[in-house]
Structure formats: C-alpha cells, structure tokens
C-alpha cells in the first residue's frame, strides 16, 4: 500500500492508491453540497410530519396539517358554490315558467344551460339541438314527443325515456309485423303518407288503410295523426319524421318499430342544472 502524500500541484492529499505512477487525489465533497443534502433530509422529515405520510393497518395518519385531496376539492367546491349562490337562489326563487322574464336571469340560464347541454345532450341531439336524422330527435323545432313546456322538459331530462329509472317515460309501439299482413301494413303506410296533406283530408277516408289506422294507430297517434304525448307517440301529420318519411321507412317502422331511449340524469344533474338545461332547450326555438 502506497503512502498518502501531499500532491505538489494542488496541495491536496492523495488517497494513497497508485496505478503505474498515476495517483488519485482525495477531494472531499464540498461543504455546500453536504449542507444542502442535510437540509433536504430535514425538509423531507418535516414534510412527512406535516402531510399524510404514514399508514397503520387501520387507517392513514392525517398529518399535522390535516390536508387531503378530497378536502381541498370540498374547499374549491364551497368557494364556487358561494360565488354561484346568489344566482342559484334567484333561479330557484321564481316559478320555472317565469325565470326567463328576468333578462339577467335569462342570460345566466342561457350561458349555464349551453355548457350543460354541450356536455350532456349534444352528443346525441347535436350542438344547437339539431338532432340526428333517423336516430335522435331535433330539439329546436316545435314537434315535441313528450311535451315542450319547461316542466315537461325537466321531467324528461331528470328521468329519461325508456330506461331503468322507475320514473322514466315509458311506452312501446307494438310490433305490427306480427299482427298485420304485409299488404295491410303497406295500406297503413299509404294512409299515413296522406296525413300531412290537407288537400287529401276528404279523400283519405276512402283509402284501404283508413280503418286499419283507426283501429291500430289512432289510439296513440290520434285520429288525424296529431300525435299523443302521453305515449311519446310522434305527430304523423307534419313533415318531421324521426325515423324517415319514405314509404319504405314507414313500413319498416310499423313492421318492427324502433324506439329511442334516453338516459336518466337524476343522479348527474342537480335541481338548478335541470332548470337551466330545460330552459335552454325550451329557448332553442320550439318551446311551448
């Protein structure tokens, strides 16, 4: 083992190791580095003491500050709720039908309702409520399946249509392919196609499908195809067709009906949100 000696050039000690005449300097870790290292360890210990760091088999020790991410969330929510409270109280203080008479409140409902609509409704009904031809109803016309008053819309959004919510709107169109012949169904379709045409008001009674319509369809869709909102039965005497207005599409719908389903939003949206949403939809153009 070689001797530890002082290096002439740097004035430092060597480690005493030597390889083929090359000697290794013993350079200590700088003081600033050691100090920073020790401070870091102390900071870590203080952090462990302040924040939730240790768990027993029973529970998590909360730490001196009592911080939790869910607690922070609750604080954020409380701040937001306090800021929104005056508006929400004003919104709930007036009857639903009169909310939009207050111009300020109308603007609040428009802004909040639009955000809620775009997140919850637009995927099916389209941004702006244009709907999806052959799939999801448009909401900006005056053709309502289950009613277009604000209270009707609140009810529809809250519980949905044909879903597992016990209060959802329920109805089912019978499968007429089982009970009517192809010829009869064709006749009914021909008759349905005349309903929108006022000029055929007198002549249509003579069509072969007239009696069939009266017996099978009028109960829900109305004598003149005006629709039945108790059953979500669409109006048939206008130019709006949810599943298509061609003869083939109507025959298909009579033979094996498609019926839309809408989710229940009762657990997702609170009372204020339901109001804002319903009034926004009501204001899209066709509200009653």
């Amino acid at each position, binding site marked *: 083992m070689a001797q530890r000696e002082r290096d002439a050039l740097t004035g430092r000690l060597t480690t005493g190791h030597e390889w083929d005449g090359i000697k290794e300097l013993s350079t200590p870790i700088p003081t600033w580095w050691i100090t920073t290292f020790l401070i870091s360890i102390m900071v870590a210990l203080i952090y462990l003491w302040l924040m939730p760091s240790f*768990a027993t*088999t029973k529970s998590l020790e909360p730490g001196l500050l009592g911080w*939790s*991410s*869910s*607690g*922070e*969330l*609750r604080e*954020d*929510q409380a701040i*937001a709720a306090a800021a929104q409270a005056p508006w929400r109280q004003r919104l709930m203080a007036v009857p639903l039908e009169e909310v939009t008479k207050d111009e300020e409140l109308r603007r609040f409902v428009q802004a909040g309702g639009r955000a809620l609509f775009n*997140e*919850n409704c637009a*995927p*099916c009904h389209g*941004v702006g409520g244009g709907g*999806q031809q052959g*799939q*999801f109803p448009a909401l900006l016309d005056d053709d309502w399946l289950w009613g277009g008053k604000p209270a009707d819309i609140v009810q529809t959004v809250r519980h949905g249509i044909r*879903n597992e919510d016990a209060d959802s709107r329920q109805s089912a169109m019978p499968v007429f392919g089982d009970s009517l012949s192809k010829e009869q169904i064709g006749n009914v379709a021909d008759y349905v196609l005349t309903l929108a045409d006022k000029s055929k008001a007198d002549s249509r009674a003579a069509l072969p499908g007239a009696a069939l319509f009266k017996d099978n369809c009028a109960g829900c869709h109305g004598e003149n195809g005006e629709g039945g909102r108790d059953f979500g039965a669409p109006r048939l005497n206008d130019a709006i067709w949810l599943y298509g207005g061609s003869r083939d599409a109507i025959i298909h719908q009579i033979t094996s009906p498609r019926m*839309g*389903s*809408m*989710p*229940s939003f009762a*657990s*997702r949206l609170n009372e204020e949100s339901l109001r804002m949403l319903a009034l926004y939809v009501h204001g899209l153009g066709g509200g009653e």
Partner: protein
Amino acid sequence: MPNHATIERSLSLLSMLALLVISIGGLVEIVPLFRIETTVEKVAGMRPYSPLEQMGRNIYTREGCYLCHSQQIRPFRDEVDRYGHYSIAAESMYDHPFLWGSKRTGPDLARVGLKYSNAWHLAHLEDPRSVVPVSIMPAYAELKNRDLDLTSIPDHLTALRKVGVPYTDTQIKTAIDDAKAQASGVDTDGLLARYPKARLGDFDGQPNRVTEMDALIAYLQVLGTLVDFRDARLDPGAK
C-alpha cells in the same frame, strides 16, 4: 475516513453491512404488501364484471382505448363538475390490469356508463363523426361483424380468479349463458342475481348474434355506475 477504509477492506464486514442496509430497504417496501388488501376500502355495490362486460373490457384493452381515454376522475373541481364524483380505489378493485390511462385525447370514461343510450354508443363506435362532428376517434364498425369468442370466457374468469377476483364456481360455469343472456335481454334472472345492475339488451342491433360490439357497449354502459355516491359514508370528510 478511517472507519470507511476498515469496512472496505474487510470482505465479510462489508457483505454483512451491505446485506443489512438492503434488508431495511427491502422490508420497508415489501412488508406493507402483505397487507395490501386492507388498502382498498370496500364499498357497497362493487362486483366483479359480468362475463360479457369482462369480454368487452378485453376488447377495450385490445383496441387500445386506454391510450386516448383515461378512466380516472381526479379530485379537482373542474373534473368533478364535468365527469361526476372522483374515482375511488374500490372502483378499480376488480380491474386486472387497471385501465386508468395517463392521457386524455378523448374524454375520461370512468363514469360514461348510462350517460348515453346504447343506440348512441353503437352509432358512435360505427362512425364517431356521425354523432360528434369534431371527433378524431377512429371508427370501430368492424366490431359489429366479429362474433365474440364465447368459448374462452370461462378461461378468462378462471385466470382472473387466480389474481384475486372472487368469481365463484357457479359464475364460471354459467359464464357463457350469462353472456348470451345479457346480450339478448332474455332469461336474465340468474344473470341479474349474480351481477346486479348489469345492463341488458341487444346492444348492437343484431338480436341473433353476440358480437364484440355487444360486449364493448355492455362494458362501457357499466363503467362507474356500480357505486351509489349519494351514500354519504363514501365521503369520510363530509360529515
């Protein structure tokens, strides 16, 4: 530092001390794992996935949905406002592997269940832009043409049981029938007893087939719906 030199020059002393240091590190990391099951608080309503949902989950994994969709609502106000209650540990307790994801190119799906109708999911998976014009999601129409591999279901459930999902012998034995019942909505009493809140129905519009589309939609429709968050006990801080 003479002490250090002493340790370094004695092979047996160095080995013993190295072993001691590594043991401390090892114990601190390993011992808590013996009690890992106590770290997930049990929550009412959680159940293993039904066979059809589990197969849908496999398709979700296979197609890489988790690359663009997270399944983890963080406890921030903006996320809770948009997606619902933040995700809790128990909701992933039967996920092997979990599909929390780390990137949101599309929205979070942790609570997408029952947010849209089955018809919407079908239209959206067949052609995303038909319902969401700005979407950049690829179409998955092909799933509708692929029959679900029903025969492999019991093996999947058995494998999951080995890693801790409590499927019973009955559940494994009835798995194929349960999958068929859920995808048809017919004869579902047994299914619903074994898997409460399972969504029933012909998801893909083809009543006579059980396709991968059926399985995927059944899975999406159950996401985040099993725990009832109106139960105040779930939020220990909100007393």
